[in-house]
């Protein structure tokens, strides 16, 4: 494997150290990729620091991602989420700050979207084989309104199962990004859920669906916010992991829907809202979201904005 050329050959002006201190550290970059969150997570950090320092920041960010995955995995029977799903219908359960934060945002989005976004659609996803069946009783009529969250305590009014598959990946990206010191440039891409700093003037390529024997097309667009997440296309109902919370059926998403948003957690969740109901643009616009549709030929159109 070839060594990558560190970009240090080009002198980069950095803010001078205060006083007559040491000259600024040379400029380096590190890109690391690990399987995590069920996909490939890539972290790229660029800045005025040694390669070893950048790498240790990157490793720390991956540790944060691993911790969030262990907390919020539906697949893992031993995760904190699975424990909550098992017992919260019988008694209130104290949850970690991370889980409370994600649940709080999820419930707020459910309220704002009048239930279009709902983390209790697991039964449909289990039936379609997207999620494992842990054998616990689930009331199919339960909705987000049956989840009570107060002072870090969660209680279910009906037996239900929370799946954070539509929001936790974005949250993990946000938390990992926050661990990287602010003077470094960083991009975290968790299988298409991207958070970056700085984002102005950056671009992102949207992967359009495959066309026959050709690979998928890529369309480059300018970043419109610090984060972006993309859903779809899911042309067949049985393939689709996006469930309409109203009719409780998996939905067909003919285009890819990319959501630019102030945080990756919001981008991740709001892309599902836009996929389920493209007309509900006021919901994401009020939260600073901007939606882009991309068709099979890679043609893009902004959805309900401007």
């Amino acid at each position, binding site marked *: 494997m070839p060594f990558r050329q560190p970009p240090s050959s080009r002198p980069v002006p950095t803010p001078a150290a205060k006083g007559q201190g040491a000259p600024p550290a040379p400029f380096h970059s590190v890109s690391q990729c690990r*399987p995590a969150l*069920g996909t490939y997570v890539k972290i790229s950090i660029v800045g005025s620091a040694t390669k070893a320092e950048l790498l240790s920041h990157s490793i720390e960010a991956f540790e944060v991602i691993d911790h969030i995955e262990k907390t919020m995995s539906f697949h893992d029977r031993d995760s904190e989420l699975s424990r909550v799903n098992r017992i919260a219908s019988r008694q209130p359960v104290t949850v970690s700050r991370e889980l409370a934060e994600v649940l709080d945002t999820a419930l707020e989005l459910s309220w704002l979207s009048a239930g279009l976004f709902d983390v209790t659609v697991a039964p449909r996803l289990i039936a379609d084989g997207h999620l494992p069946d842990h054998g616990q009783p689930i009331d199919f009529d339960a909705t987000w309104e049956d989840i009570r969250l107060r002072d870090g305590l969660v209680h279910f009014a009906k037996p239900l199962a929370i799946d954070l598959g539509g929001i936790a990946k974005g949250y993990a990206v946000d938390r990992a990004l926050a661990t990287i010191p602010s003077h470094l440039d960083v991009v975290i891409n968790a299988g298409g859920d991207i958070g970056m700093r700085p984002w102005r*003037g950056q671009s*992102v390529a949207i*992967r359009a669906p495959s066309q026959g024997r050709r690979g998928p097309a*890529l369309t480059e667009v300018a970043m419109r916010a610090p984060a972006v997440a*993309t859903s779809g*296309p899911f042309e067949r109902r049985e393939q689709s992991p996006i469930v309409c919370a109203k009719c409780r059926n998996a939905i067909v998403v003919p285009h*890819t829907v990319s959501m630019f948003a102030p945080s990756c957690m919001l981008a991740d969740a709001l892309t599902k809202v836009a996929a389920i109901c493209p007309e509900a643009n006021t919901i994401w616009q009020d939260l600073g979201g901007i939606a882009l549709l991309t068709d099979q030929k890679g043609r893009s159109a902004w959805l309900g904005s401007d």
Partner: protein
Amino acid sequence: MDRRTFFGSTLAFVASLLFPKRFVLAETFLTIEEAQQVLWGDTPLEAITVTLTDEQRKTIAKASKVRVRNKTIKAWRTPEGGWFILDQVIGKHENIDLAIALTHEGKVKGIEVLTYRETYGHEIRNEAWRAQFHGKDHTERLRLDKEIRNISGATLSCRHVTDGINRLTQTWQLVLQKV
């Protein structure tokens, strides 16, 4: 249209069907040496190449339910019997290069993706679009690293890595722990 033009364009059309325009985007991450440092720190590593017999490949494939494509395993061993193994799994269409560390008990200690490849229908060649960002500080800085290309799409599963890990832990069970 004369006959020659007709045959020419027919040939071009058939060729475009047989050999659709595609390109492979390869993103490289850590080097082998960097991955060794991340996974094993300063533990000394001894390079070992293990060649699997056909019989061993069959047994591993049966136990892991994953086909064993390569006969040769490129690996390093720690004094305590831990392993650093270079491996390839197939992603959606292309090979993905991995480095995997196994403890002396055959448990996965860590995984690093070294090269990630994906096939696309066409490459972005929008020079005018790119030009608008020239001279902007942060953009320029990130552009220094040509490998950074951020692609957003529906999540791609890393199931093949899980299969690859199953295959390698079985390989450890049947072969490596006895080397």
